[in-house]
C-alpha cells in the first residue's frame, strides 16, 4: 500500500463529501421537489438518499478493484488509452460546467439578496479568487478547511431550530403518500441534483489512507447525514408554508428565516445567507479541485491547471444571469449528470468485471 503525499483520513473524507454535496442546492431544494411530490417531498428526499447510497456502493465496487489508481488512470486501464482519455475529458467538462453553474447560482443569489447593485462579474471574481487560493495548495489543506467549514452547517442546524417557534401546520404534509409513487419518484429524481457532489468519491478514493476497509461506513455516514439534513430542511419548509406558497417562493429556506427576528437582529435571513457563503464556496472549491484532477497530469503542472480552470469557470460564469439562460444551463447540466453519476460508473464496473481487469500488481 503506497501512501501518497497528499492523502486524507476517512474522518476528513466524511466532511469533504458533505461539503461538496451541501451548498447552493439547499435553497431551491424544497421548491424543486415539491413541484411534483407536493406534501410527500420529504419521502422523495429519503428515496433519493437511498439512490445515492446504491450508487456509492457501485462506485466502491469499481474503485476496490483499483485501490491505488487515480480515476483518470482507471478509465484508461479499462477502456484503453484513447477512449479513456475521452471519458476523462468528459468528466473534466462536467466538473467545469457544474462548477460554473454553482458559481452562477451563487452569484445570482448574492446579487438578489445581499448586493443588488454590485456587478456579477465582481462577485464571481472574488469568489473564484478565494477558491483558487485554497485549491492551489493540496488536497490535505482543502480537507482541513472543509472540516472547519462544517461548523457553519451545525450553526445553520442550530438556527433552524429557532424556526420551530414560527407557526406551523402539520396538515400540509397529510395524508402521507397522497401524491402517488410516480410523483414521489419524479421528486426524488430532482432531489438527486441537489445531492450531487458524492461523485467526488471516484477521484478521492485513491487518496484515502487505508482505503481497503471502513470506507463504506464513512461514506454511508456522510450520505445519511446529508439525506437527514435535507429531509429535515424540506420537512420544516413543508409544514411552514402552504403548497401554494411553496410554489411561488424560489428560496423557501431564506423566507423561513425572514420570519424570525430577535432583539438585536431583525433580519436573520441576511446573517444566515452571509454565513452560508462558505458552504457554497466549498462546493465550488470541490469542483475546481476535481476538474483539475480529472485530467491525468503531473504534480508540477497542478497549480497552473487550477489557475486555468479557475479562469475558465470565471469566464463561463460571465454569461447573462437571466432566468431563461440559467434554467437552460441547469437542464443541460442535469443531462450531463445522468451520464456522469449513473451511466459511466456502472458501465465501467460491468466492463471491468467482464474483462476481469483490476490493478496489476500485488493487490488482486
Amino acid at each position, binding site marked *: 500500500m503506497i501512501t501518497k503525499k497528499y492523502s486524507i483520513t476517512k474522518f476528513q473524507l466524511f466532511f469533504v463529501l458533505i461539503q461538496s454535496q451541501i451548498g447552493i442546492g439547499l435553497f431551491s431544494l424544497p421548491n424543486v421537489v415539491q413541484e411534483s411530490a407536493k406534501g410527500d417531498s420529504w419521502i422523495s428526499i429519503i428515496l433519493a438518499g437511498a439512490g445515492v447510497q446504491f450508487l456509492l456502493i457501485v462506485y466502491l465496487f469499481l474503485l476496490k478493484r483499483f485501490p491505488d489508481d487515480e480515476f483518470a488512470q482507471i478509465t484508461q486501464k479499462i477502456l484503453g488509452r484513447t477512449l479513456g482519455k475521452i471519458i476523462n475529458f468528459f468528466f473534466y467538462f462536467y466538473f467545469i460546467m457544474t462548477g460554473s453553474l454553482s458559481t452562477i447560482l451563487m452569484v445570482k443569489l448574492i446579487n438578489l439578496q445581499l448586493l443588488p447593485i454590485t456587478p456579477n462579474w465582481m462577485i464571481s471574481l472574488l469568489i473564484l479568487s478565494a477558491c483558487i487560493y485554497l485549491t492551489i495548495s493540496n488536497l*490535505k489543506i482543502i480537507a482541513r478547511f472543509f*472540516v*472547519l467549514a462544517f461548523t457553519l452547517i451545525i450553526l445553520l442546524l442550530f438556527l433552524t431550530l429557532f424556526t420551530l417557534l414560527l407557526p406551523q401546520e402539520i396538515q400540509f404534509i397529510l395524508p402521507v403518500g397522497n401524491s402517488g409513487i410516480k410523483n414521489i419518484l419524479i421528486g426524488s429524481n430532482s432531489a438527486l441534483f441537489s445531492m450531487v457532489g458524492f461523485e467526488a468519491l471516484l477521484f478521492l478514493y485513491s487518496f484515502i489512507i487505508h482505503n481497503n476497509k471502513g470506507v463504506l461506513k464513512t461514506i454511508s455516514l456522510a450520505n445519511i447525514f446529508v439525506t437527514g439534513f435535507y429531509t429535515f430542511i424540506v420537512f420544516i419548509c413543508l409544514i411552514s408554508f402552504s403548497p401554494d406558497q411553496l410554489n411561488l417562493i424560489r428560496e423557501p429556506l431564506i423566507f423561513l428565516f425572514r420570519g424570525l427576528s430577535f432583539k438585536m437582529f431583525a433580519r436573520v435571513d441576511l446573517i444566515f445567507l452571509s454565513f452560508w457563503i*462558505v458552504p457554497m464556496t466549498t462546493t465550488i472549491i470541490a469542483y475546481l479541485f476535481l476538474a483539475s484532477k480529472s485530467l491525468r497530469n503531473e504534480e508540477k503542472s497542478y497549480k497552473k491547471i487550477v489557475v486555468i480552470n479557475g479562469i475558465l469557470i470565471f469566464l463561463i460564469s460571465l454569461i447573462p444571469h437571466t432566468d431563461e439562460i440559467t434554467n437552460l444551463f441547469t437542464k443541460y447540466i442535469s443531462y450531463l449528470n445522468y451520464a456522469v453519476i449513473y451511466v459511466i460508473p456502472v458501465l465501467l464496473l460491468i466492463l471491468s468485471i467482464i474483462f476481469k481487469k483490476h490493478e496489476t500488481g500485488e493487490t488482486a
Partner: protein
Amino acid sequence: MSFFKNTPKQNITLNENDKQLTNDLKKNIEMIHEYLCQTEDLMFKKMSFNKMGCTILFLDSMVKKDILQSSVIGPILEKKSGEIQNVVKTTELKFSSNISEVGASLLEGYCTILIENDAIAKSVVVGEIAERSIEEPANERNILSSHDGFVENLSTNILLLRRRIKSPQLKVKFFTLGKITNTKVSMVFIDKLANKKILEEVERRITFIDVDHLLSIGDIEEFIEDNPHSPFPQMLTTERPDRGASYLTEGKIILIVDGSPRILIVPITFFAFYQSPDDYNSRWVLGSFFRIIRFFSLMISISLPAIYIAIISFHSEVLPIGILYSVRVSLEYVPFSPLVEAIVMQIILELLKEASIRLPTPIAQTLGIVGGLIIGTAVVEANLVSNSMIVVIGLTAISSFVAPVNQMGTSARLLGFPVMIAASLFGFFGIVLILMVLVMHLCKLESFGTHYFSPLAPFKLEDLKDTFVRLPTWKLKTRPTDSQPVYKQQQRHTRGWKK
C-alpha cells in the same frame, strides 16, 4: 551539519590569518596586540614567575579587577613558582597556542598569562558582566503565576530554565552567529521528548543564517520563520521562564540569544497566543472562562468595526427599528463615510498608543487624558465622528489589548483594516470572504513542519481539551500533539487516591 561546525572558524580566519604563538614573549604580546587592532583598553601587567618574565594581558573593560587581583595576580606574587594551573584560583582555565583563540577569550572577559619560553597561553576567567537583576517582565504581567523574568544574560536565562526543569535530559546547544558581533545563541530542549525531525529542521535553518550582526531575537525570528509574509506571528516570544519551561515539557524548542531578554519558542500554534500561565493557576472553570473571553476579543478586534460599517452602509435592515433609529440619529450630521470615520479613529488611537508607549508614566497619563477624553468628546461634538463609531472603535481597541501576547493582539488589530475595507466595498459578503480567506491561510500555514492551526486544522478532538477551554489539570493526561513529541503521556493516576 559539518558545514555549520566549520562556520565560526571560517568567520575568524576571514578576519585574521591564523598565527601561532612563539617562544618569544615580546613577539607574542605584539601579535596579540596586533590581533586586537592595537586597541587601547588592552592592559599589560609585567611580573615574574618561575624566575622568568611573565605578562598578564586583559581587556580593561571586560574584567573585574577584584577577581583579577585575588585569583591571579595575588597568588602569582605569593607563590612565585610552580605549575601555573595549581597557582591561580579559578574555575576555568584554557590553554591555547592560537592567536585567534587567545583573542576570543580576551573578548569574553578572560585574562591571558603569557610566560617567557612558552608557546602556550593560559587564559583564566576573571570577567563579570554587569547585568540587570531578575524582575517581572513589564509586558507580560500575571497575577497568579511566578514573578521572575528573563534578563539579557544568556547563562542567567538558562539558569532560570534549569531551576524549573532539573532533568538530566535538558539539553543546551550553542551556536555563534554574526560575523562581527559573534553572538552566542543557544537552543534548549528536552532531549528525549522533542521531535528529532523538528530539531534537525531548526538547526538546519539556523546554519543558513549568515549575517554580520545579530543583536536581538527578532532577527532570528525573521530568518527562520516559514512564511515571512503572513500577518500571523509564527513563533512565540516570551519573557516568562515559567511559560518557557512549560513549553519545554510539551516537547518544544527554545532559542535564546545572548543580550535579548525575550526567548523564542518553536514550533508554535495559533492558539498558544491566547493562553496564559494564569489559566493553569486559577480554577479550571475560571481559566476556561478567561480563554473564551480572549477568543471573543479576537473576533471583536478583527470584525466588529467591519460589521458596523457593513450594517451602516449596506444592510441597515438587519437592525431592529429601535436600534436603527438611534444609530441613524448619531450619523445625521457626520459628513464622512463610515470607513473614513473608522480609519481616522483607528489612526488616532494608534498615534496615542505609539506616543505614550515610550514616554515616562506621568506624561503618558496626561497624553491619555488629552487624547482619549478631550479629543474623543470634541470629535463627536464637532460632528466629525459619530457616537456609535466611538463606541465601536473603543471596544475594538480594548479587545485587541486582551491577547496575552502582544504580537497577536497587534496582528488582530491590523487585520481589522482589510476586513473594514472589504466591508465598505461588499458588505457582509466582503467580511465573510476575507475571513474565509484568513481561515484558509491559517489552514495552509505551517510552523517547522507542524500545523499552525492545530488542533482545529487538522481537527484533533483530544487536543481541544486545552484550547478553547482548559479542562481540569488531571484531565490533561496527554501532551498537545502539535509539536509531535516523542511520547504523549504526561500524567498517570494523579487522583488515584479517590476510590
